[in-house]
């Protein structure tokens, strides 16, 4: 990797200041950025690590009953401590391998918005609020396409608030090499309706499968899941065609609903 400066501020405010400098780059758990640096595909002048910010750590419950995860919380901590939202804890506990879960953070995953990452599906299906140093962004407004989000330059995800559904389940079909989601479907049933978020499948990144949401809101059963969505706009690569991914969206949605019991 190229040379860079490294700072590890102790507060969000200090991190924001540090990120104001030219060529500064935020570092979450580094599960994407460090390999990118090692491949010399990025050359930030300064890395601003969020790992030392205590106020961004941990899982709690707010007055509204939402599960609140600090932006710097690693997957292993969510898996262990988000028992109030079992589907979320289960998702976190099945990201990558133990080494990844010990370092990777929820804020890093959502900020990167990899089209095959797991967390975007949870956030979008849950209608989560993405809290930053500057504002609170609804998940529906946050995800704006592959590797694209509503975050401004230097904006830091400090917390993610998940309304807890009546029932939820995440089904991941793993790409055999990377074990990222070839397709992942998160189904969350709330009192006011069902939300279905799909990762891994679309060229536009995570998306809500509205047809399934409508059908499941009317009848929350696996049999109610519609036929597979159109393959147009789905990812096609050496691991699966667009048609295969579209097919898996429906299969995994059915399985997620069935698993909700």
């Amino acid at each position: 990797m190229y040379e860079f400066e490294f700072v590890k501020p102790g507060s969000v405010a200090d991190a924001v200041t540090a990120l104001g400098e030219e060529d500064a780059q935020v570092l979450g758990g580094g599960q994407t950025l460090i390999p990118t640096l090692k491949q010399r595909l990025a050359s930030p002048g300064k890395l601003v690590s969020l790992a030392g910010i205590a106020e961004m750590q941990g899982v709690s419950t707010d007055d509204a009953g939402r599960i609140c995860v600090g932006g710097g919380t690693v997957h292993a901590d969510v898996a262990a401590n988000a028992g109030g939202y079992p589907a979320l804890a289960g998702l976190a506990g099945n990201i990558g391998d133990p080494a990844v879960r010990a370092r990777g953070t929820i804020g890093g995953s959502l900020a990167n918005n990899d089209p095959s990452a797991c967390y975007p599906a949870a956030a979008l299906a849950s209608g989560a609020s993405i809290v930053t140093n500057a504002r609170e962004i609804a998940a529906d407004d946050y995800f704006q396409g592959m590797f694209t989000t509503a975050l401004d330059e230097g904006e830091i995800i400090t917390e993610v608030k998940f309304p807890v559904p009546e029932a939820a389940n995440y089904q991941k079909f793993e790409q055999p090499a990377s074990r990222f989601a070839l397709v992942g479907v998160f189904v969350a049933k709330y009192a006011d309706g069902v939300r279905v978020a799909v990762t891994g499948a679309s060229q536009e990144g995570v998306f809500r499968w509205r047809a399934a949401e409508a059908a499941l809101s009317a009848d929350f059963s696996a049999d109610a899941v519609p036929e597979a969505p159109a393959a147009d706009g789905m990812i096609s690569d050496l691991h699966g065609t667009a048609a295969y991914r579209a097919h898996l969206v429906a299969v995994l949605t059915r399985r997620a609903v069935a698993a909700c019991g």
Partner: protein
Amino acid sequence: MPKDHGIGASPKRREDIRFLTGAGNYTDDINVNGQAYVHFLRSDVAHGRINAVNTGAAAAMPGVVRIFTGADFEGVGGLPCGWCVTDRHGEPMQEPAHPVLAQGKVRHVGDPIAAVVAETAEQARDAAEAIEVDIEELPAVVDMKAALADGSTKVHDDLTSNLCYDWGFVEENKDAVEQAMQDAAHVTTLELVNNRLIANPMEPRVAIGDYNRATDESTLYTTSQNPHVIRLLMGAFVLGIPEHKLRVIAPDVGGGFGTKIFHYGEEAFCTFAAKAINRPVKWTASRSEAFMSDAHGRDHVTRIELALDKDNNFTAVRTETYANMGAYLSTFAPSVPTWLHGTLMAGNYKTPVVYVNVKAVFTNTVPVDAYRGAGRPEATFQLERVIDKAARELGVDPIALRRQNFITEFPYATPVAVEYDTGDYHGTMDALEKIADLSGFEARRKESEARGKLRGLGVNCYIEACGIAPSNLVGQLGARAGLYESATVRVNATGGLVVMTGSHSHGQGHETSFPQVIAEMIGIDESMVEIVHGDTANTPMGMGTYGSRSLAVGGSAMVRATEKIINKAKKIAAHLMEAAEADIELKDGQFSVAGTDKSVAWGDVTLAAYVPHNYPLEDIEPGLEETAFYDPANFTYPSGAYCCEVELDPETGKVTIERFSAADDFGNIVNPMIVDGQVHGGIGQGIGQALLEGCVYDENGQLLSASYMDYAMPRADDVPFYNVDHSSQTPCTHNPLGVKGCGEAGAIGSPPSVVNAVIDALQSGGHDVTHIDMPVSPGRVWAAMQG
């Protein structure tokens, strides 16, 4: 009662103490005082003409010692090819030049253009980025059939085409095979791909060149399976260094799987550059470099036809294969699709006539060469797949069809030029049927179906030619090397032994298994025997380890040398006991005089050899050290029968392996635990090939599967626990240990049964699918189910 020492015992591997505790001495662990580091600037296009390489700015970068380009290697030899195949018309293959650094053109992504030597690896990499390369990109040739079409871009401008050779075997049988096809009651045809693989040893390649100006000696430390072969190829053909001025050391090597047999340009570069700058030069491949510079494996496109008579006897086999050579000929590349492949096309069956046609093709891809099994997996896969397809077409049991056609009398001369010395194919199939619990399959299938899954069972046999190889025979076939093996056995004064072997261990456990043989022969404890390998300075000229040859050939050399030791020791013992040499017996480390109670211990004799006060100096020399070279009379022919049971999720196409059983005949076995491990590892690689691994290029020659993000290696949860059985043993008749070799069997024997099982599962679910190419990924299965 299993033995607790000697041949047939399973002592734990003594080398694992250092491997498992981080105390191994791998090439990258070696640092030579004053070493500089090299970074190779590699082509990012698959095919292009180099107009200019401007190193001016890069040379001024911090820490840069010197930058080398192809021009520095003008007048230096290219990388040699170790095997010349003669084509159907009696003409030698087309053999392109293979420069150490690209000259004029780049021919695959990863082809090295320039090399920067600097004080640190990072500085070398920084400077490499500053080299200005003007490359005119040319159309890339990736598909083999397109490469042979008229008007195709040529990978090598000075060759007549992209055809390396068009090989026919046995050419004289061509017409007879055609006649048999016409006369057949049934012909089954199958077109298939044997997928390109990347070997991925855990340790990437490393090379360190060192030059001693005072002695004019060069030393190369390298990750090699055969240091003497590297010394000969690099010294004689590339750099012009005689053997006595060149030492090659291959210390602990973290897995080879074939891809560390070959002589690579990076080795020659480090040796060359060390002399040029008078400093040691070190190179450690990144994993990304390994993907685009280690020789790949397999990559055949094949059409096979199997002819049967009305009684389902096999009457002929005909195959046509396109074999990818990549952009250059790697060291043994031409031999893999020919002599290591065509000679196995009779399989375990008494098919009277066989014709094999192989077209080897140059493409703008990484060179392809031997990978665990090398040619034999490709032969086994197509034959065992087409037999399964024939059984299905004819509505007969696939095991019964195989049994009906088994060779049962040995020795057996096949129609493809080899003679199987021993085997018992019914015996291994009997063993398989027991361990695979075939009778319980239907119940297991019903249980799977109750859960909405399809279950399939696939069986295959295999035969391989190992113990490579009789030198006079391979010489006739085009090998430019002998394939004997060597051993020096040095007995120390106090009775311990050091065996210097030409074999090389890169995970096989020779340091444990070889002493078991010597301990058995002398009747001493294994701990008295130490194995030395991997350094041309202290081992006799040997050919190294590949082709499941170490015990069969290297072990035989060791036995021969030990026999010489014992013969001499008996002479000494006879003198010490004032008895006739003919009356001396050796048992449990004691020399005794037959019919008396007189005896002397092994240690007394060895001491006498080095302190020859009471010694027959007029008849024999002091000391106890002997060398033997062993050249095998024939290949060995391990064989076996494998069974795979899969479960298939019809909704997603995902296949999981539920049971895997392997019954092998390896002849005599020295260490059953190590043999189990070799079989386990081989099956793991075979399952990897069958379900997961696929090296993929796009039409522009860009490597799409260029990292573990896209190249799927098998992981622990991808493979089941294996049932293995070695009880069927027909010892090899022509080597002193009666051993056949076990290193490649698992990789050769496992892919067909996996695919056969997948097809069986799909058919059981009413899906009319007759073939799916490997890797049998969920997406491919699902697509096949859609019709």
